[in-house]
């Protein structure tokens, strides 16, 4: 989560600026500390606290110069930092090339809805919490606020931009190397603010295109009896909130499950996406993420098993 190991054209100038102001800051603290300690040591009175009146009060020396010089030098340094700040701000304001890809990210309590927009409506897809992008090119991110204010932050790629209801903010990011970059909501948004991670998965452009094409496929069909039973349960129990494209599960207020198994985590980064975790989550989400909008459905062990088995198909 440290942005100091940034990995993108947008991150690099900020990392440099951070190091710059950090070094200035540390230097200032050290200089002031030395001046303070040396000042105390230099003139320290031998008089004890109880006899303080024995130490004569007088105006010694003319130390006003220290005030003027100190302030003057501080002002010059501050002004330099300001110029650098404005330069970096201008440099990262917009990408060097027009982004080919626009992704719409919506902050919700407590997960991220991710939509890939395209001029060709048949290529629009919806997924959750994991944002796949191609490397080596800028990507525009439109940030939508849906319920309360959240803040979108992928430290290694971009600083924070809030998602605010009633307004659309736009930011951009660009990854130079393939990798998985973790991010997290950073505007306090309620009980599960702590469990609202997002991941940017950067792949080379052809791997990314393959992923996109895979996501466009409808959900896999069940074959075994248990899988069929699981699909029935999902449509009946989960379908009001979750979408599994190509089935009767058509909800849109919770993450799209059509390709659930292509994601590495569940519940916005709370758990790794393993069979055991998935079953535990479905059985009692409130125990894992108290307050989450997903209710406890009081499913029987068999039902949990059926549903989990079916969901394993959704690659």
């Amino acid at each position, binding site marked *: 989560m440290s942005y100091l190991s940034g990995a993108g054209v947008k991150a690099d100038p900020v990392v440099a*600026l951070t190091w710059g102001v950090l070094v200035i800051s540390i230097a200032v603290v050290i200089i002031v500390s030395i001046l303070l300690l040396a000042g105390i040591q230099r*003139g320290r009175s031998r008089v004890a606290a109880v006899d303080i009146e024995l130490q004569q009060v007088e105006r010694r020396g003319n130390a*006003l110069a220290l005030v003027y010089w100190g302030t003057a030098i501080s002002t010059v340094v*501050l002004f330099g*930092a300001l110029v650098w700040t404005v330069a970096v701000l201008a440099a990262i304001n917009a990408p060097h090339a027009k982004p080919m890809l626009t992704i719409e990210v919506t902050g919700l309590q407590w997960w991220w809805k991710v939509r890939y927009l395209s001029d060709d409506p048949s290529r629009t897809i919806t997924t959750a919490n994991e944002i796949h992008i191609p490397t080596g090119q800028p990507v525009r991110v439109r940030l939508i606020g849906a319920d309360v204010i959240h*803040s979108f932050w992928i430290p290694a790629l971009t600083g924070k931009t809030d998602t605010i*209801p009633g307004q659309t903010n736009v930011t951009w990011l660009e990854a130079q190397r393939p990798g998985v970059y973790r991010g997290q909501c950073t505007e306090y948004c309620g009980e599960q603010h702590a469990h609202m991670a997002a991941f940017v998965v950067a792949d080379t452009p052809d791997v990314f295109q393959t992923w996109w094409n895979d996501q466009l496929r409808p959900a896999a069909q069940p074959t075994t009896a248990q899988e069929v039973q699981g699909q029935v349960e999902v449509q009946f129990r989960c379908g009001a909130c979750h979408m599994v494209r190509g089935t009767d599960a058509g909800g849109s207020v919770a993450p799209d499950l059509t390709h659930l198994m292509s994601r590495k985590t569940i519940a916005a980064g709370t758990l790794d996406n393993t069979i055991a975790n998935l079953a535990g989550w479905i059985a009692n989400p409130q125990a894992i993420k108290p307050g989450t909008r997903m209710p406890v459905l009081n499913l029987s062990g068999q039902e949990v098993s059926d549903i989990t088995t079916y969901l394993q198909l959704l690659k």
Partner: protein
Amino acid sequence: MTILDIERRPEVAAASEASRRRLDEIWKTPPGIAGFLSTVDHKQIGIRYIITAFAFLILGGIEALIMRVQLGRPEQQLLTPEQYDQLFSTHGMTMIFLYALPVLSGFSNYLWPLLLGARDMAFPRLNAFSYWIYVAAGIFMYAGFAIGAGPNDGWFNYVPYASRQFNPGMNMDFYALGMIFLGISTSAGAANFIVTVFRTRAPGMSINRLPIMIWGTLTASAANLLVVPAVSLAFFLLWMDRQFGTHFFDVSQGGQPLLWQHLFWIFGHPWVYAIVLPAMGMVSDGLPVFCRRPLVGYTPVALSTVATMVLGFGVWVHHMFATGMPNLALSFFSGASIVIAVPSAVAVFAWLATIWSGRPVVTTAFLFFASMIVLFVIGGVSGFMTGSVPVDWQLTDTYFVVAHLHYVLIGINLFPVAGAIYYWFPKFTGRMLDEELGRWNFWTMFIGFNIAFLPMHLTGLWGMPRRVYTYPDGMGWDWLNLITSVGSFLFAFGILLLLINVVKSRRDGRLAGPNPWDASTLEWSVPSPPPPYNFAVIPHIVSRHPLWEQQLQESDARSSLDTGYLLDHGRETIATTSLDSDIDLILKMPEDSYAPFLLTVAVSALFVGLLLHWWWLAAVGGFATVGAIMIWLWPERDLGQTADAGHG
């Protein structure tokens, strides 16, 4: 009826035993519960402010320690998310609103008339009123927490999460009404300070002879007068949205969530300066005493105090850098946020120069004041870093900001306050605090604080968001959090040592005498503790350091401390002109009064009625409020407010 204004030539006399006895008779508050509820003595009120603020400090500290246990290790389950959210919100509310300003108001209340050579504040009854309202509002705000409905949206309480749709409980109603309630106290106190400084200074104490602490509290008070209405209004609009279905913040009906942030931070940022400038003033006045020389750069420091606040009105947007603003606005507010460091630099270098050119006598108070310089600089440079927009986009809402604000608030408020307790405790009680225990106290607090909060900068740089009730293992944050938790307990132990020292020394500390530090300002010219009337005669001042004139030998003129205006026809003090402090009028001061307490009861009933929708109670409270104010303001002959006073 004859129309004759009484005028008088105030009698000039030397303080005598007889006059002291008479003044004591005039000014003293009766003992017992009657005196407790009716006193208007600024010294009693000041002490109460400080004790009450420390009670809240302890509560807020306990809340912090509970959170530090939860965060000591990853994936802890000690607290539920809701409990954690109420704890961090209540902790912020407590420290920022119920501790940080009130404790400074306490010192100012106690010290102002003594520093200024007056017998009380300009509005003694209003002074009592602002204290009672503070207590009542504090209880009101904590009542929600006590029944499990404390604030749960952080101290800055962003909408829409605070709206009814997402926050249906009473949590926000307690907080919203409580903040409006508390705002009454803050505003009344601020008005009182401003009038006191402009009207009741001793003759000769022209504006360029004011102690820096006066400048600090004056500036803070002026700011409070201008910005408290912003936050009261924000909370009122929120309450209207929640209770009456208005559409200020409700997005689906055209509301504007960012309006909340503007109103809150227009208040919030000047408020941060309001809770540090008076404390910086205490350092500017206390530190030179231990350095055995006057402050270097009085005028630059006084001007920088005012400049900080003026600039402080123009930086609120730096709390909103991530809300999607245009670059031009970002650059402007980034510039203002960086430039505001310049006046702070003036103060820092003035303190350093004072130490550098002085002969420091290292006492516990000195250690607290001097260490504050380093803590101030650390809090300052981390603020400078987050003032730079691109850096802020990475650091905001992480633990870096948590570290920053604790260096600011603890470093520039609590450390000076601790130093001020060591410095002025002898004046308050007549006894010295134990210096040896003081050393233990200081070093435990200083080391504990830095262990807790210095590594926290790294926690933030490594990406830990603030306001999370837990965090996953393996992010590299575990050991940093553990260190912080350990440090926080050490820090708390240091504060416990301070309390122990106070309790112990109150009983058997060394006797202090009027001026144990051989200090220069007027409060040290009166006995410790001061008599109810403060000054047997109103002093006449000819320099910035009335008690050091003999030692400094800077002019032949000497302030007159033992001979001055007697003013003993009832409770009286002198009013002087605003800038030059020439004698202007004899002020008649009010007697002790139950009106402030009763008015507080009435206002409390009003707020409880509004909270619970007991409209009858709100109406009763409202009428009682109006009635109490009318009785309070009824013109009194003894205060020279009616025409027939002319006969007297």
